[in-house]
């Protein structure tokens, strides 16, 4: 639900333009200035190093129009449809807006994706797969794994230096951390406007604001978001039952629109195209590798990686802090891990008076599920509890 107040706002219009373009123009402009572009898969690529090397991180968004013919040659049926589409963009024909790839092990399917890309480079050198880095974080909180992760971070720094064609100094890194922390703080202002007693920014609008950052210069993103945050304080308050969203990354507006057009207001989320991606700053005072690792290990526990207990605790806490009346958990087809959490999450949320609904096995794009809009509307009606605005 993009309101006129957003569409008439200059900063929002610019973010929306970049978001719609998926960064193609931004990448071309960066290249024209002599810069290199790194296509990113996964929400845990430590972008600090890329920015420090003047490399533009560009999230590889799925393409809902793709027929997936190229991905189908390599991927088994149980790859989720969104990753299938991202893979298709990499291996399909045509000019690519990236020079290199970085893949983080944010979920199992991305680990396999990396292995397949590596094998493709080995067995089909003509395939359009550039030099690809893999970030093998260990997410279990422990000092031992932190040290392992610091070595991985240092490795990625070296790779970024190779791509940048120059050493990355600690000063470069501090500057990158400064930019990214500024951007995260700016996104925090938007989040505060969503979480307020009277939310001023819808979830759908927030998807555009957050998602634009995946495709553009981050300092400019920071500045645009800050400008927007100042103006959005005067946007009309949204009415409707407050909803927290959990689950699959949302690269387009369909699912959020279904929920918000039915009358809900999405006031928070833990999906990686939203606030989870921007939460937690990198400590500018700590040694660089230590600070980077700390940030990526300590965010909201991922629905894909964390244990059931950690997920339940995190989700209940997030939903309560958001004063959500309901939680919608969405998962794409073959995206299975979070389904193991849901029964526990539902019980825990309902014990706190928060309703929960699971929408699983969703196709990509979500419009392919002709019943989804109706099912989501029915859930929102439940949340309204018979009152006009919930």
């Amino acid at each position, binding site marked *: 639900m993009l309101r006129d107040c957003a569409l008439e706002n200059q900063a929002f219009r610019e973010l929306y333009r970049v978001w719609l373009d998926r960064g193609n123009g931004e990448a071309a402009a960066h290249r024209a200035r002599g810069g290199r572009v790194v296509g990113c898969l996964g929400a845990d690529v430590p972008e600090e190093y890329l920015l420090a090397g003047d490399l533009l991180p560009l999230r590889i968004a799925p393409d809902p129009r793709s027929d997936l013919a190229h991905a189908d*040659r*390599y*991927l*088994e*049926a*149980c*790859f989720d449809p969104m990753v299938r589409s991202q893979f298709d963009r990499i291996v399909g024909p045509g000019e690519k807006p990236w020079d290199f790839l970085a893949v983080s*092990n944010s*979920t*199992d*399917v991305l*680990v*396999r994706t*990396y*292995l*397949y890309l*590596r*094998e493709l480079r*080995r*067995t089909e050198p003509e395939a359009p797969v550039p030099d690809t880095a*893999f970030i*093998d974080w*260990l997410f*279990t909180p422990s000092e*031992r*794994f932190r040290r*392992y992760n610091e*070595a991985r971070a240092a490795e990625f720094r070296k790779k970024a230096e190779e791509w940048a064609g120059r050493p990355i100094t600690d000063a470069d890194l501090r500057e990158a951390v400064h930019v990214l922390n500024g951007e995260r703080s700016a996104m925090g202002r938007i989040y505060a406007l969503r979480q307020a007693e009277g939310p001023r920014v819808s979830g759908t609008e927030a998807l555009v604001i957050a998602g634009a950052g995946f495709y553009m210069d981050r300092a400019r993103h920071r500045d645009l978001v800050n400008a927007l945050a100042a103006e959005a304080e005067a946007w009309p308050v949204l009415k409707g039952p407050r909803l927290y969203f959990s689950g699959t990354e949302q690269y387009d507006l369909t699912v959020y629109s279904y929920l918000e057009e039915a009358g809900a207001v999405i006031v928070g989320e833990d999906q990686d195209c939203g606030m989870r991606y921007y939460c937690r700053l990198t400590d500018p005072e700590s040694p660089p590798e230590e600070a980077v690792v700390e940030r990526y290990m300590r965010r909201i526990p991922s629905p*894909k*990686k964390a*244990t*059931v*207990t950690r997920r339940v605790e995190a989700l209940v806490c997030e939903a309560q802090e958001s004063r959500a009346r309901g939680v919608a958990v969405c998962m794409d087809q*073959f995206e*299975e*891990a979070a*389904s*193991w*959490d*849901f*029964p*526990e999450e*539902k019980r825990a949320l309902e014990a706190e008076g928060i309703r929960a609904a699971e929408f*699983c096995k969703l196709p990509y794009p979500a419009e392919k599920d002709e019943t989804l809009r109706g099912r989501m509307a029915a859930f929102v009606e439940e949340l309204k509890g018979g009152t006009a605005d919930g």
Partner: protein
Amino acid sequence: MAEERRAVKTLKAAQESGAYQKEWFRSLHDRVKAGEDFAYLNADVPMEIFRAMDVPFCVNQWWAAICSAKRMTPRYVNFLREAGYRDDLCSYCSAVLGESLDPEDAELGPWGGLPRPTMAVTRLTCDCQGKIFQLLARNYGAELFTMENTLPRTVPENWWDLATDRWEELYDADRLDLAVEELKDLISWLERKTGRVFDYDRLIQVMALINEQEGWYRRTRDLIAAAPMAPVTVVDTINATMQAQWQRGTEWAAGHARRMYEEIKALADAGHAAVPNEKYRLMWLGRGLWHDFAFYQNFEEKYGAAFVWSMYLAMGADAYIREGYERDPLRALAARYIGMEDFLHMPPWNSGWFVREAKNNRIDGVVYMAPANCMQAVEGSGFIVKALERAGIPVLLFRGDPVDDRKWNRENMTELVGRFIEERIIGGKEA
């Protein structure tokens, strides 16, 4: 749903292992009843530590196979559904989670059901594993221990040439270092939990017995590969190997592997052919079809097609033996367990090995059951098929489930494989 026709096993070793595991499971019940701690382990957990400390344990995938063979999987899936879980997830790994919800498990479960574990241990080799183990640990009141999983950054070719005695070259050194530290953590946890003391000398004995056992598998694999007519098929070797593999590190398992070799050698020496009209040698890729073992024998009479190869025996032959364990048994053990997933599920390690095995075993065609819903078992089937086909070996790839028979249709599958044999194998040779 498969009809009740049962696979015909001929090896005494297969019968022996079947009988042994039943007896072993009964004794496991006794030990748990007597108050001993009992660990439930995922298959990729280094069970050698538990063996060395004489902590009773049971392996998840072995138990899932037993439950499937006893046709219990649908019952357990029902319990999961009633508890609010989806019924189409992780069938191989989650059967026991369903069983943990069964109030009549002691009466209706296979062999008196699963004794109540006090410990649950898994590696985080897929997104779901830690979650499933945490849930089952909670249902049983067991304590959970998880071990991390790292990905190889360097991938030397032909892992099977390095795994036995050049394993330091096979892995990134820091992966091994980390795995050793995790083994030490596991040992400390077990010592604290059970009050037992870990003994390096005992682990060395266990490692020696495992090398001995797997050495017999190597001889057996090579014997079957070289025999003019296969003396046995996978119907005998899968169960006999898998059942004993989960007993590895015991005198019985090493002795059983030797007896199996001697029995098969005697058959080969006598010119015995498991399929007397053998014309075509088939390779089975993927997990065992636990709910319908008779399926493997459907093509013998009509086509003279014998399934002679599965990963179970061949992994024993190539993936487990670690020389030099006396110097540093924990590091040698780390060098065994951190690679298992990658040997099987990571191209090019798996594809290269399958091609090599297919050639050595004079395979005419490969029937490849890829997972229907398991990301852990996703292994680059496209790369594997391509590598085998490029080597001149036709492949039939289909999706299936090793334990959940709800979507299995033996008639359709028999027709599919029959057509593959006729068109790709027989047709290919005639062309």
